[in-house]
């Protein structure tokens, strides 16, 4: 037995409505996180991540509403490009933020990178000093 076309429409409308509201809530989560989190790194979490899910839900509801399967590959490509670029930009900003010390150390319960960075910086200073010494010797 085929369901009435109207009920199918109603179900699709309801699902896409839920997707749109939840997707918009994810953007709201990003905004609240940007306002409330204390430092750059934790703000990065709020600013970049809810979009992965939020965009997925909004694109899915667009696809459901347009009712043509031709649009699905475009939406999928858009989402995949988002998935590929979000971690890279988050990593670049986070890395630059860590190196320029835009974070509150007192809010970290553990920092296993600091010792490594300091060791590398010390090694770089020493090799620089060695180079300087060689130059004056010559």
């Amino acid at each position, binding site marked *: 037995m085929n369901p009435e076309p109207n009920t199918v429409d109603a179900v699709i409308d309801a699902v896409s409505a839920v997707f749109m509201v939840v997707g918009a809530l994810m953007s709201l989560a990003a905004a609240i996180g940007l306002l409330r989190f204390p430092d750059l790194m934790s703000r990065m979490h709020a600013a970049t991540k809810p979009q992965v899910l939020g965009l997925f839900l909004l694109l899915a509801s667009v696809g459901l509403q347009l009712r043509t399967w031709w649009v699905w590959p475009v939406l999928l490509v858009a989402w995949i490009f988002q998935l590929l670029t979000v971690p890279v930009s988050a990593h670049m900003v986070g890395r630059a933020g860590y190196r320029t010390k835009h974070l509150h150390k007192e809010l970290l319960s553990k920092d296993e*990178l600091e010792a490594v960075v300091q060791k590398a910086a010390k090694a770089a200073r020493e090799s620089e000093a060695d180079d300087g010494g060689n130059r004056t010797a010559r």
Partner: protein
Amino acid sequence: MRRGSLRQELPLLVWLVIVWGALWQDFSPDNLLFGALLAVAVARLFYLPPVELSGRFNVLKAVPFAVVFLGRVVAASCQVFYLAVAQGPKVTNAVVAVPLRSHSDLMVTATGHVISLIPGSLVVEVDRSTSTLYIHGLNVRNGEDVLKLRKEVRDTEAGLIRIMGTKEELAALNQEVGA
């Protein structure tokens, strides 16, 4: 520079043709053929170093991994939302070093990507020589949370090795799990 063989380039070419078809919203054979010609031309003109694929891809393992990934993204998104509202400025974080099993660039990149896409963890630094990821985790309060985060990353890597790791990596993983 050594040119990649056609077999090595094939996944890239197929992907370019799919993007071409998707952007035109037209998957008719003539459009795809023209897209394929363009893909070959683009791959020749803008040559990039070949990505060293392992030659394996387990679809049976990939589908559950994708489903679990989506579930974790949903759960973690809600968690970040809750943290933003409930804890806000008082949230405690940590930077955790996670040594990975694999030393291939593809594996390290894929693991870092998946971990970064799941809310609450962010790759701050990568040490390629030891293939260690330094991950900034949201709401990591104590040593127990650190261990949990590290296990999560290692499990993600294990899942990716099962999907597309080399045979050697897979054998090493199976041995580790069996032991």
